[in-house]
C-alpha cells in the first residue's frame, strides 16, 4: 500500500499526454452515456417485442397485405377521432357473411354476431393515460400507419414494433415541425 502510493503527487498524471488522455476519456464517456441512455429508451426498430394471442387468429398479412384492404375500411374512426377503433363484428360480417364461412374462426365470429357480444381483443399498442394521441390529425396529414405501427401488412400476428416512448414521438414531431408544446399530447 504505502509503497504503491509514493505521495499525493502520484495521484495526478505527470505528462501532458496523460492529462489530455484523462480529459478525452471524460468527454467520450459523457457522449457515450448520453447515446446509451437515449437508445435504451428509444425505439427498437424491426423486432416485435409483444405479440399476444388474439381470440381470433386474424391475419393482417392476408387482409391488409395480400387482399390490400384499406386500413380505414375496418379502423373506421381513425379519420375522424382520436382513437382508430377496433372494428365491430358487424364490420367483419360485411364480407364474411358468405366468405370463408366454414373456417372455425368465422364460425366463432358468427356466434358472437348472433349473440351481439363483442369480441374481446388483446390490446397491443398501449399509451399511458396521461398521453393523448390523436389519430385524426395524423391521418389528415396523410401519415402512413406503418410509420408508427410498423409493417402491419406483413404480419400474421400483430406485434408491437416500436416502444411508444416520448422520444419516439418527439423525433418525428421535430422532423415534421409538428408542435412540441407539452400540452399537444399531455393534459
Amino acid at each position, binding site marked *: 500500500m504505502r509503497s504503491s502510493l509514493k505521495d499525493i*503527487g502520484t495521484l495526478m498524471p505527470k505528462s501532458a499526454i496523460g492529462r489530455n488522455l484523462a480529459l478525452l476519456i471524460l468527454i467520450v464517456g459523457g457522449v457515450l452515456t448520453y447515446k446509451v441512455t437515449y437508445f435504451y429508451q428509444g425505439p427498437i426498430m424491426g423486432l416485435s417485442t409483444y405479440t399476444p394471442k388474439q381470440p381470433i387468429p386474424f391475419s393482417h398479412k392476408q387482409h391488409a397485405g395480400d387482399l390490400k384492404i384499406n386500413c380505414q375500411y375496418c379502423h373506421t374512426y381513425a379519420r375522424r377521432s382520436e382513437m382508430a377503433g377496433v372494428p365491430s363484428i358487424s364490420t367483419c360480417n360485411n364480407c364474411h357473411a358468405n366468405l370463408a364461412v366454414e373456417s372455425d374462426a368465422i364460425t366463432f365470429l358468427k356466434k358472437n354476431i348472433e349473440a351481439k357480444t363483442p369480441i374481446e381483443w388483446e390490446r397491443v399498442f398501449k399509451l399511458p393515460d396521461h398521453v393523448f394521441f390523436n389519430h385524426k390529425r395524423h391521418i389528415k396529414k396523410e401519415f402512413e400507419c406503418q410509420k408508427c405501427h410498423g409493417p402491419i401488412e406483413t404480419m400474421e400476428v400483430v406485434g408491437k414494433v416500436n416502444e411508444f416512448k*416520448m422520444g*419516439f414521438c418527439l423525433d418525428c414531431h421535430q422532423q415534421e415541425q409538428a408542435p412540441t408544446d407539452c400540452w399537444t399530447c399531455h393534459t
Partner: protein
Amino acid sequence: MGSHSEKHILTTKFQTLQNEGKAHGINAGSDVDLHMSDEILNEKSLRPMFRTTKAWFVYTLALSSLVAWAVACWGYQIWNGMGVTNLKHPVFWGMYIATFVFWVGVSHSGTMVSSILRLVSANWRRPILRGAEAMTTFSLLVAGMFPLIHVGRLWRVYYMFPLPNQRELWPNLRSPLAWDMTAITVYLTASSLFLFVGLLPDIAVARDLCPKGNWRSLYLKILALGWRGTHRQWMIYEKASIYLAIFVLMIAPSVHTIVSWDFAMSITPVWHTTIFGPYFVVGAIYSGVAGVITLMILLRWVFKLDDVIKLVHLTNLSKMLLLMSIIWTYFYFTDYLVTWYGNNPVEMNVWEWQTERFSLQLIVMLGCSVATIGLLSWDWVRKSPGMLLFITIWVNTAMYLERYLIVVPVLTHRDNPYTWTDYWPSFIETSIAVGAAAYFLMLYAIFIKLMPIVTIADVKEGKIITGDIAIGNTNIRAYGDPGEH
C-alpha cells in the same frame, strides 16, 4: 523512530503521562502549551479516538435509535403521501424547509471559519479546526437530506439532474432550486475535500500510533495515502490547504446566498427583498460559530482536552460570535425597517399575524440577539464555558426559530386573504427534524472514533513556531511570540 515506544505508552504508561502533562505549568494565556511534549499531545488528541467508554456506546445507540425512528417516519410519509405532514393549502413549505436552511446555516461555521483563520494565519485557530470542519461536512449531509424529504415524488427526483434522456427534457436552470442543488453539492464536495486534506498528517500520526491489530489500522493505512511527512509532501500539503481554503471561502457565502434566493427570488411578500443574501450568510455564520463553540466546550469537557482546546480559543471564538450577533441584529432590523416603511398591506397583515400567533418564538429569537450582545460584552462571560454553552445553545435555538419564522407566517397569511390559515408541524415532521439533529450528532460521535478530532499537526506547528528551538547549547526564540495573547 520513536513509534515503538509511543505505541507502548499508549497502552500502559498513559496515566503517568497524563499526570506529567497536568504537572506542567500551563500558561492559560497562550494558545499552545509550549512545555507539553509531543507524546502527551498525541496522547491527548488520540485518546478520544482509541479509548471508547460505555457512555459513548449508550449515547450513540440512543441517537441512532432516534435516527431509525425518523427514517421510519420518512418511509411512512413516502408510502402515504405528503398528507401525513401538516402542510396544507396554501402553506406548501413548512418545517422541512426551515430545518434545511438551519442546517445549511450551521455548516457555514466550520469550513469558513477555519479557512478564514488559516488565511489570516491566526495562531489560536489551531486545535479547533478539525472539529469545525467536521461539523461543516456533517451538517451539510443532514441539510442535503431535507430537499429529498420535502418533495412529493421522491422517486422522480432525478428529473432535477441533467441526465441525458430520450424525452430531451432538462432541468430548468431559471429555478433557484436548481441553483440550490448545484451549490449544495459543490459545497459538500469542497468541504469534505478540505476536511480530508487537513486530516492527512494526523491520519498518518494515528496510523503510526495505532496499536497492533487494531481494526482502525486498516482504513488508516489506506487513507493516509502514504503520508511520510517528507518535505515535498508538506509543501504540497500547505499549498493544497491554502488553495482549498481560498476556494471554500469563495463558495461558502455563495451557497447561503443561493439558499436565501429560494425565498428572495419569489414574489412572496416578506421574502421578496434584496437584503436576504447577506442577511442569510451572516445568520449562517452566526449560528455556525455558536455551533462550533458549543461543540468545542463539549469536546474539551467530555474528553478532558482543557489544555489542548483552551479557554483562549473559546474566548476568541466568542468575540467572533459577539461580532456576528451585532451584524445579524443590524441586518434583521434593517430588513424589518425597510419592510415596515414600505407599508404594504399584505406584509403588515403578515406581521400582525406573526406577533399574535408566534409571539413566544419572537421573544426567544429577539431576546437572544439582545442577550448575546449584552452578555458577551462582559469579559468574564467570554471566559466562562458554562455561560458560553448556555448562550450558544440559545443562539442556535433562536436561529432555528428565525428560519421557522421566515418560512411559515407569510405562507399562512399571504396575498389572498380568503385562504389565510394556520400551520403547526405534525408529529411526523417533528420526528424527522429531531431525527436529523440526532443524525448529525451521531455522525459526529462516530467520526470522533474514526479520526483524530484535534488537529495535531497544526498544534505541533504552532508549538514550533511559537516556542524555542534548541540550536547547539543555546535555545533560540523562534519567530512568533508566545506571549502575544
